[in-house]
């Protein structure tokens, strides 16, 4: 299946604004992040601790709803889902 990845701010500079990624059926958010890390060492270094845990400043949305990186990385994705990756917000 194919899912869309949108990246913003520092993550856009690493991954590009938008890309499509092919994953196995029923892949999770974590699987998608691992797939991105496998194609971009810079993304891996920026987004993950050496232990493999996601860094605190990595924020995620699935289909424009925030998800909790502590609890929801095992969430299953579906064809056409959209994952947004960005650092802490700094508007206003």
């Amino acid at each position, binding site marked *: 299946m194919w899912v869309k990845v949108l990246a913003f701010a520092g993550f856009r500079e690493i991954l590009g604004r938008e890309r499509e990624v092919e994953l196995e059926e029923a892949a999770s958010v974590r699987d998608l992040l691992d797939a991105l890390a496998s194609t971009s060492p810079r993304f891996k270094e920026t987004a993950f601790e050496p232990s493999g845990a996601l860094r605190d400043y990595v924020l995620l949305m699935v289909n424009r709803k925030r998800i909790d990186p502590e609890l929801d990385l095992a969430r299953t994705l579906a064809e056409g889902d959209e994952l947004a990756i960005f650092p802490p917000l700094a*508007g206003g």
Partner: protein
Amino acid sequence: MIEITDEEISLDRMIQRARSNDAGAIVSFFGTVRDDGIEKMEVEAFRVAALEELEAIRDEAMSRFSLKAAEVAHRTGSLDVGEGIVAIVCSAAHRDEAFAGCRYIIDQLKSRAPFWKKEISGEGERWVEGV
């Protein structure tokens, strides 16, 4: 009206839209690019998600503070020192509600709306609170 724009923000036009005969108070907040030794600021948005979040924040403020109108505009793109980044205008029957509504919207915008700022100076570039 909720607006995310690459064009300069006109506070005057927002105030005109917020005026009404049953509103006795109009309060505005205008956030600008401060000179912290920077040359420019670049503002980026997750536009679709930011519009949804700003609409939700506006609706919350309208009902919590009995506002007559609430206008929100946020800039994107490349900004010079002194240019407006964000503008909020709230009208209400009385000043307390208008002040409270304006305060609520800017505080919620800062914590919930997906915008990012990059400062550009002679020494380089830096994402504010970012990676």
